[in-house]
């Protein structure tokens, strides 16, 4: 091997060359944990939101009302506990708690589990906000047409709610990419953990973590851009075709959104 580099960028190049694959595998794990964690957390959030909004008729008998009350109390406890404690502590408690009870989880499974449950608690509140943002008439119309609570939530209310909360979902995603770094305390070999090992060999902390910071930034920036594209896709077309005008039954006119069509 050559002599060790002497300049900052010399070190950066040297480290990239030597530990490039290490960083890459760290990025892989970070993305894996953040993406699955966010997706599962989002699913948890939606489910909790559906469960918490089950309507109870005031004239319903107690054995109908009681289970729903209990469920809603349980869900509130879940949200309060996981929003109210740091994820780094949750990681320790869950991972070592399971071990204490004789359940030895692979760290990667533990990592995804922790991020999912933690994200789910936040998502539940975010989705609740999204549901509030949807006009009550939407739910009423769905009920009036005969849809069940589940159907009206899944097909009418939540699609609109989710569109409204896309910015917050993006936040959670970015937070998860960054905060999965705390999982190094249970030895998940994600990006931060890998960086620490890389820095340890030559004791070049600044150079290594400079690289790490750049990688995190690149990841989060890419994700936010992708989510923007997704948002635009969800908004759908601003144009539509009018089939068959009065003068020509085969005519198809494209009317722009802010065009000749009166808005209310």
């Amino acid at each position, binding site marked *: 091997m050559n002599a060790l580099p002497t300049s900052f960028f010399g070190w950066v190049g040297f480290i990239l060359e030597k530990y490039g694959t290490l960083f890459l595998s760290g990025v892989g794990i970070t993305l894996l944990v953040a993406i699955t964690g966010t997706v599962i957390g989002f699913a948890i959030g939606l489910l909790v939101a559906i469960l918490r909004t089950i309507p109870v008729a005031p004239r319903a008998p107690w054995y109908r009302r009681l289970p729903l009350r209990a469920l809603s109390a349980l869900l509130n406890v879940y949200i309060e506990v996981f929003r109210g404690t740091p994820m780094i502590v949750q990681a320790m408690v869950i991972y070592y708690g399971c071990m204490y009870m004789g359940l030895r989880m692979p760290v990667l499974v533990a990592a995804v589990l922790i991020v999912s449950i933690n994200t789910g608690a936040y998502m539940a509140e975010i989705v609740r906000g999204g549901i509030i943002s949807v006009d009550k008439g939407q739910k009423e119309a769905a009920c*009036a*047409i005969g849809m069940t609570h589940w159907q009206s939530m899944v097909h*009418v209310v939540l699609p*609109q709610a989710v569109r409204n909360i896309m910015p917050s979902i993006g936040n959670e995603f970015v937070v998860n990419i960054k905060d999965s770094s705390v999982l190094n305390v249970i030895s998940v070999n994600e990006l931060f953990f890998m960086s620490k090992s890389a820095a340890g060999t030559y004791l070049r902390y600044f150079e290594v973590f400079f690289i790490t910071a750049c990688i995190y930034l690149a990841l989060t920036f890419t994700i936010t851009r992708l989510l923007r594209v997704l948002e635009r896709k969800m908004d759908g077309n601003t144009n*539509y*075709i009018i089939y068959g005008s009065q003068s020509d039954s085969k005519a198809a006119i494209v009317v722009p959104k802010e065009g000749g*069509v009166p*808005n209310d």
Partner: protein
Amino acid sequence: MTDESAPILRVSGLQKRFGEHEVLRGISFDVHQGDVVSIIGASGSGKSTLLRCINFLEQPTDGAILFHGRNAETEWNRAQYHAKVGMVFQSFNLFANMSVLKNCVSGQVRVLRRDRREAEEKALFYLDKVGMAPYRDARPAQLSGGQKQRVAIARALAMDPEVLLFDEPTSALDPEMVGEVLSVMRELAASGLTMLVVTHEMAFARDVSRRVIFMDEGVIAEEGAPEEIFVRPNQPRTREFLSRVLGA
């Protein structure tokens, strides 16, 4: 339904309280097959609450709704009941996340379990009836109020309802759009659809409906044929209300 004269919908002793506030204080009436009933009355007289109680958007405090002689709350499957008793809202409430066509299809597919192709055919048939078929791909946000309400009517009709409830269907519309919605409703009435219409359109109540119910302070103050109510009202409060709204 062997008895021709049996009511399709019977409202019996309906009461609704919001806290201390009694909005409905014992409402009873029958609706027969093909009836077009207008419910008129001042704001706050409980007209809309009555309609919302009939399809359980509000839970009645007391009393019963009988549909084909069976208690709608306990003896009917809720989804089935809703499919048969449709509703048109003052604020349209078209599903904002769906195109015009999908608005008219989703209920048929989800609730009635209709085949999608069949549902689309039916939706287009009714959209054509209300003159909105050309806009099948538009989103609700791209339509005017009158257009939205016509789509909402098509959406309700696509479910093949036996009774259609209208909750002030023209009250949120600009004056020049009221006519297009009323003319659709006139055609429906002529076609024999059973309709229950809460309205401020006195001309509609007088000319189109077979029966008029005048509500005042949570009770039915007077009910009868339109010519009785509008020409020879019995009750002083009916007379007072009519002279106020007709500006006579």
